[in-house]
């Protein structure tokens, strides 16, 4: 390695372009090994601390995708049901993915037949389970209670600290985001104002 580094710093002999290019290549290689500060060893531990308990291949998140394109909830539910019927024939409900799809489809039927209140308690139960998982990992998670307005995409359901001035939140539209401390305070203020109006 030392020989390579020394070679990288030798002045080129002559003005041959090829030689110049070779020297730049050597310098770039040396830059990779000597040119930047190294990552802190603790960083690896911090990343490992965020490995999910269940590391499973992620199935296509249709709800999220459809929410992103902002189509109506009813249309989203209908689209998902069609997708579930099609994919159900492939998975057959035999494995974990299939079972999860079966559960999702039951939830969607409830949603379509009885409105979203029928699902609210289940959604909140799942989020509380998520909070318990996080707490088991030693994270302090703040749950804002079952009075949160699930129709309001700016209301916070859960928040937890990621690092200095960065927080993870689950919002009323069930999206998970990373926000700054300032934004957290603004959202909390907004929620208090909305509650005061009621």
């Amino acid at each position, binding site marked *: 390695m030392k020989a390579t*580094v020394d070679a990288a*710093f030798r002045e080129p002999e002559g003005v041959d*372009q*090829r030689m*110049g*290019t070779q020297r*730049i*290549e050597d*310098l*770039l*290689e*040396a*830059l*990779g*090994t*000597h*040119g*930047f*500060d*190294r*990552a*802190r060893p603790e*960083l*690896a531990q*911090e*990343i*490992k601390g*965020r*490995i*999910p*308990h*269940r*590391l*499973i*291949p*992620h*199935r296509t998140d249709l709800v999220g995708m459809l929410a992103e394109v902002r189509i109506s909830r009813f249309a989203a539910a209908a689209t998902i049901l069609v997708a579930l019927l099609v994919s159900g024939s492939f998975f057959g409900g035999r494995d974990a993915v299939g079972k999860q799809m079966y559960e999702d489809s039951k939830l969607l039927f409830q949603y379509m037949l009885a409105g979203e209140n029928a699902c609210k308690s289940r959604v909140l139960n799942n989020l509380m389970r998520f909070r318990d998982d996080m707490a088991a990992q030693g994270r302090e998670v703040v749950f804002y209670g079952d009075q949160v307005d699930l129709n309001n995409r700016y209301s916070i359901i859960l928040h937890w600290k990621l*690092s200095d001035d*960065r927080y993870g939140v689950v919002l009323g539209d069930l999206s998970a985001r990373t926000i700054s401390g300032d934004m957290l305070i603004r959202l909390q203020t907004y929620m208090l104002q909305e509650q005061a109006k009621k």
Partner: protein
Amino acid sequence: MQKDSELTEQQAGTAHLNEQDAVVSPGPPPADDSSMLAKRLRHGEPAAARELVDRYYERVYLFMRAVGHDRQISEDLTQETFLRAWYHIAQLRDGKALTGWLFRIAGNVSRLHRRRLKGKEAVSLESVEPPEGQVDGSLEAGQQEQLIRVRQAVERLPRKLREAVVLHYLEQLTIVEAADAAGIRVGTLKSRLNRGLEALRKEVADE
């Protein structure tokens, strides 16, 4: 449209990089090892996820630093890269693609970060601080100076050229892996490397 521009880029290449580059792999672990790790990851083994971190966190961090993020942001983006990797683990096909797959995620994370901050990025402390201590202190003063000069020249490269140079020369990815990571064709990558090297050669020679 993108393919057209890639083809133009390929034609513009001076092809000093030959096919041999595509099979030389100086840095990364053997393919068998990667295949096994990829297989374990696909089976959802937490131990494999930890091994992935041990094996790649320094390289991903270096990538973030080399494409121009400051230390704190580089750490955050390194973490985000792994979180996304676990989220998208179903997209991992085989071991040969492991490195390219991870660096493709890293590249996307870096680009998304820039897009989010477009127009509102504050001047980082490092851009106003002297670069002392940021290169290996064990090198002689003259060598440190040269490295700082090359590093600044790399930072001034256009984003696409810089990413190609960082992936292949600093991260030691093969041509095929680097093209995969950048999401472009091998010919396009070679062309970008040629243009990047030429720009660096001129800039370093001018100083």
